[in-house]
């Protein structure tokens, strides 16, 4: 059995030249010890070449040289025209790294900001810190398992990913969903939309320095999440929708919690929005900041509340109706300003519409089964399908290709936050550093969905 050599022998220590000396003679001189300590300290500060990440610009690494602290050039050659332009520093400009671990970046988003004084000149968002390869995993798991793989993508409103996935799969398999299941899907998703928008309100206020709204947001969210936990068994990753229906009918605890919440939801929403709508600091910091006009919003592919705040009434529930939305009565709120405040107000209007939809679902819900009859092993015919739903952040689509086997051949998730965040390099330049988080936050990105 091989014995492990200790690094420092108590006696007979081996010197670098190979000569073995007795322990009492192995004392190195004061100068030599100091030099060793200095070398060790230098090695601690500067990790060996193979451990250094190529990803980080030197602003993160070369801390021992003061002059390099703001060295903008990444350690690898620039790869694109845009990167070369970004990392060329003009007169009086500096770089500031925000994130990836920053409380205001809604996950692990890293923004490399190019600043001139307090003013943002350019932004380079760096993604991928949360990349889990969900698409690859889904292509290697069967159709039933995909539903729980897509749950943790956008963890704030995971039912919408499930919905987009089952919508695409139902088209591949030509499954008819029972009407009661459709109503349950609408009901639970709209609840989650309320939860997500309320949370958005709290985080937007938090990024602008207001602590109180987030507490009220979490009260609201907790009630909804507990309600859904009574129905699905989980608080966040529900795994509730199934191909051809939902997993289990509404139960008593869910309905009693829902009735309890509905009795005060509208009033509570007004109280919550009153916290911010009448707050002068909030309104003055959000109004006229980060204006996204109609043309640019369309060219960037922005969807959801961000697009509707720019004056385009595009809501998948109306623009391309799915499920039972054609039978429900609700409005698509639209605003023309396109600034942070409009994006906030749109979402608060949507909360009111969602409460109306929930009310209609409860009154119109038909009786009947909640699942279609399906075989245990799903093997749809070869084909392609695209299912898109309106999530809280915009259009959430799934593109699935079947090759006739029991696993999707290609499974593509289009997350709205991804394109909503892509406008950041367009929106931020010209704004003050203090407004960057107000603007990024008003776009409501969730990095779990962006990084897939």
């Amino acid at each position, binding site marked *: 059995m091989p014995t492990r050599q200790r690094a420092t022998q108590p006696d007979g220590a081996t010197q670098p030249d190979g000569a073995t000396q007795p322990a009492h003679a192995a004392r190195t001189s004061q100068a030599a010890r100091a030099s060793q300590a200095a070398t060790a300290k230098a090695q601690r500060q500067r990790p060996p070449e193979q451990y250094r*990440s*190529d*990803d980080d610009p030197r602003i993160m690494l070369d801390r021992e040289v003061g002059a390099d602290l703001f060295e903008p050039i990444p350690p*690898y050659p620039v*790869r*694109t*025209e*845009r*990167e070369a332009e970004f990392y060329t520093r003009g007169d009086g400009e500096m770089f500031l790294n925000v994130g990836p671990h920053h409380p205001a970046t809604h996950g692990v988003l890293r923004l490399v900001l190019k600043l001139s004084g307090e003013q943002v000149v350019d932004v380079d968002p760096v*993604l*991928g810190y949360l*990349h889990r*390869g969900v*698409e*690859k*995993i889904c*292509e*290697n*798991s*069967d159709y039933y*398992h995909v539903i729980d793989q897509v749950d943790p993508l956008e963890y704030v409103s995971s039912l919408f990913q499930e919905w987009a996935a089952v919508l695409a799969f139902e*088209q591949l398999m030509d499954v008819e969903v029972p009407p009661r299941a459709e109503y349950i899907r609408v009901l639970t998703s709209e609840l989650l939309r309320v939860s997500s928008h309320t949370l958005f309100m709290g985080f937007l206020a938090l990024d602008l320095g207001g602590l109180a709204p987030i507490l009220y947001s979490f009260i609201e969210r907790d009630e909804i999440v507990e309600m859904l936990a009574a129905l699905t068994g989980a608080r966040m990753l529900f795994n509730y929708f199934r191909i051809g229906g939902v997993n289990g009918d509404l139960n008593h605890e869910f309905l009693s919690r829902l009735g309890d919440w509905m009795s005060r939801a509208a009033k509570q929403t007004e109280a919550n929005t009153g916290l911010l709508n009448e707050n002068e600091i909030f309104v003055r910091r959000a109004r006229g900041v980060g204006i996204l006009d109609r043309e*640019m919003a*369309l*060219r*960037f*592919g*922005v*969807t959801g509340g961000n697009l509707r705040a720019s004056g385009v009434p*595009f809501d998948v529930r109306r*623009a*391309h109706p799915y499920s039972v939305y054609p039978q429900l009565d609700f409005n698509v709120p639209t605003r023309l300003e396109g600034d942070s405040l409009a994006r906030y107000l749109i979402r608060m209007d949507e909360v009111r519409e969602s409460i109306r939809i929930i009310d209609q679902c409860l009154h119109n819900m038909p009786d009947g089964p909640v699942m279609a009859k399906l075989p245990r*092993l799903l*093997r749809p015919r070869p*084909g*392609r*399908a*695209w299912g*898109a739903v309106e999530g809280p952040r915009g*259009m959430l*689509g799934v*593109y699935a*290709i079947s*090759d*006739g*086997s*029991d*696993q999707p*051949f*290609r499974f*593509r998730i*289009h997350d709205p936050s*991804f*394109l909503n965040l*892509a*406008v950041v390099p*367009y929106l931020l330049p010209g704004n003050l550093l203090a407004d960057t988080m107000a603007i990024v936050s008003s776009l409501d990105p969730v990095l779990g969905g962006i*990084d*897939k």
Partner: protein
Amino acid sequence: MDRSLKRRLEARLSSQLRGPVRQRHDQTEIRIGPGDVPDVLRTLHDAVDLRFEILADLAGVDTGQEMQVVYHLWSETASDWLRVIVEGISRDDPRCPSATFLWIGAEWPEREAYDMFGIVFEGNRDLRRIFMPPDYTSFPLRKDFLLPDDAARSPGAGVRHVERPHAPAVVAGDPAAGIRRAPAS
């Protein structure tokens, strides 16, 4: 299915279409070659009877024989989603014109398709990796990129190994060695 959309597409794009316009459920599908991408997208976006203004999605696809780029578009003039499949992109040197001249927002999905499939979008001025680290050399969503372990497909994980287009790699020792294996075909 939007029959009138099919007629309009056939009238406008008859010379560029490869194969018939297919319709199923609420989707209309056309296939074009990589050379026609700028013209076709421009026509779809600008023609008064089409006006596909919203780029819903841009996805790369590896069929095992060729690469494809798939656009999903939405227009208020049609009740269908339009799927534009750019087919016939070579797997060895995948190249496709960029859509950023029309939709700036295509920049990030194109970066993603480049990152995952290695498809080079000509005209995209920021085509670098977006999710994987910059020193990464593989393209993970290609069909010859196999997962390092077979756990996801083992019977113990509850997933039946029924039909696979490719056999799982037998990797001895280094689990990362399998993922850079040369294509089997």
